[in-house]
């Protein structure tokens, strides 16, 4: 049973169980079973750290293959602004958009302009906002998922504004179907994505519908795009730089989303481990004087996504330089503030639904039994070597103890000569489990690949 769509899959032919992925996973969502990695779906936040860590390329994002355009009458590419940072400094967004068209898309639309619109809408939202503070930026799907799973009390802090790619896709579909006189479903809109997490928002949007038909990873399209960029004729794209918005390009990197906004107190945080510390503080009520927390799970923001090609620091630098260029040339394609206000008042930007909490399952639905299991978990942990060697297939001794208590692992999976006391504890556990209802296993795991050992 797969309750939630995940954008990462393990290629068991390539996986040789080296544990690199298991060790880097920030939510302890990976186990090694029978020599192969498996993902504990309830715990995964699709951040893609494992993709970067795997030496064999065995963790594959479920993006769409590039070249699957034939099934639509008209195709449109909307690249994440992170794509603009993947090439040499002289290659500007207009040329990249033109290059996408040469690759076979009928059109390529800059997303930064809609990001810019959304930034203004966020400014407007915060001006009128009087709910729980700080508001947490919702553009990074891994951050949203982290909140739903590990900080369910903070779901009401998530910014309830539609994401630019969704706004863009909707607008494009309506406009194009009218312009070309074809059915909306005959238009294929593809997002060029820097990370697998953004796939979730397309395949299984947590909130609201999605208007995109697929996502192609930057790493897949990079090679073909690079080879056509050389031959892009300058005359064919001259006008399109005018449609790139300074406000929006900043969405690709950490710290620049709110570059030109009038926001008082914004906190920028990157990297899951730092985000976790910040969210702990928010839960304690420590950051209530901060208006907005802009958190990206990848270092340096989306330019550091696991499906990008360029070194994230170089890419970050390129975005900054691009911003300077646009500023110097006075290119400002965004709609006016007044126009955005009007649309904002018409609720164009508001999400129709709230984000829902998705807390992890407790050790047991019955509190009394959960208490017993928690005590057993601690007692088991005390008997383990506490060196987190990972050979049992769990990333830490603590997670192993938990897996034993929930029936997902056997004490014998630990290669150390654990004292007979552990066996005794396991027997005790069995009586706890048998105590009420035999099907009561505490929590249910679903794995995307392979089978969990009994």
């Amino acid at each position, binding site marked *: 049973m797969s309750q939630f769509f995940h954008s990462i899959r393990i290629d068991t032919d390539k996986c040789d169980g080296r544990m690199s992925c298991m060790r880097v996973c920030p939510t302890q969502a990976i186990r090694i079973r029978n020599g192969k990695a498996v993902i504990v779906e309830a715990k995964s936040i699709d951040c893609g750290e494992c993709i970067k860590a795997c030496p064999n390329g065995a963790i594959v994002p479920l993006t769409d293959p590039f070249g699957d355009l034939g099934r639509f009458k008209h195709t449109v590419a909307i690249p994440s602004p992170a794509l603009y940072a993947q090439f040499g400094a002289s290659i500007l967004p207009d040329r990249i958009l033109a290059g996408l068209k040469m690759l076979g898309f009928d059109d390529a639309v800059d997303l930064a302009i809609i990001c810019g619109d959304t930034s203004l809408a966020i400014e407007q939202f915060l001006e009128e906002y009087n709910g729980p503070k700080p508001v947490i930026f919702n553009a990074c799907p891994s951050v949203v998922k982290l909140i739903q799973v590990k900080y*369910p*009390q903070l779901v009401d802090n998530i910014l309830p504004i539609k994401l630019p790619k969704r706004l863009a896709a909707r607008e494009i579909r309506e406009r194009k179907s009218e312009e070309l006189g074809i059915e909306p479903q005959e238009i294929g809109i593809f997002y060029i994505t820097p990370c697998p997490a953004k796939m979730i928002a397309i395949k299984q949007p947590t909130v609201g519908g999605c208007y995109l038909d697929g996502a192609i990873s930057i790493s897949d399209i990079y090679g073909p795009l690079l080879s056509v960029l050389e031959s892009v004729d300058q005359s064919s794209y001259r006008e399109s730089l005018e449609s790139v918005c300074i406000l929006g390009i900043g969405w690709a990197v950490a710290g620049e989303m709110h570059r030109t906004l009038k926001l008082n107190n914004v906190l920028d945080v990157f990297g899951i481990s730092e985000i976790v510390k910040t969210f*702990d503080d928010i*839960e*304690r*009520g*420590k950051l209530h004087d901060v208006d907005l927390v802009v958190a990206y799970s990848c270092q340096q923001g989306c330019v550091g996504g696991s499906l990008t090609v360029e070194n994230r620091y170089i890419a970050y630098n390129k975005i900054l330089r691009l911003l300077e260029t646009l500023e110097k040339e006075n290119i400002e394609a965004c709609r006016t503030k007044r126009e955005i206000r009007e649309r904002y008042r018409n609720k164009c930007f508001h999400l129709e639904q709230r984000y829902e*909490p998705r*807390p*992890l*399952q*407790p*050790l*047991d*639905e019955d*509190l*009394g039994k*959960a*208490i*017993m*299991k*928690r*005590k057993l*978990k*601690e007692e088991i942990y005390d008997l383990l070597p506490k060196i987190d060697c990972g050979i049992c297939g769990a990333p830490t001794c603590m997670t192993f103890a*938990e897996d034993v208590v929930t029936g997902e692992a056997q004490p014998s999976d630990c290669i150390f000569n654990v004292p007979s006391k552990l066996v005794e504890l396991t027997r005790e556990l069995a009586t706890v489990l048998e105590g009420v209802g035999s099907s009561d296993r505490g929590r249910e795991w679903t794995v995307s690949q392979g089978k969990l050992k009994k």
Partner: protein
Amino acid sequence: MASAHALSRTFTIKGRDFARAGSVSLEIKEILRDLGIDLVIARRTAIAAYEAEMNVVMYAETGQMELSLDPELIQITVVDVGPGIEDIELAMQEGYSTATDEIREMGFGAGMGLPNIKKNADLFELTSTFGEGTSYRIITYIDSTGQP
């Protein structure tokens, strides 16, 4: 609370150890999450525990925090060795603080700690011997209807 359905854990808190401050209440939060305690109750408890922990870190030399829990209630007791509180009534007032400038610089000591514990607990008892130390008893009830 010695039955099989009761859990008890003791943690040591070191005064002035700001680098590790908050780790005890974080561990308590993890335990409550393992147990599936209602989100609101768990958050209230974690905040109260955090404030008490910070008080030990900021003012005391050392302290012991004990979490004990059964299906009815969560109890946190803290006993610290430290300066104690001279006037408890005054200390319970919002905005009153004896924090040093150094602690205020760090963003603490706004005089909200004790009132915040009171706000988040169903029952809060504070006793102190001036010059010796302070004890806290914080109780939150697990309302069965509040179970997720």
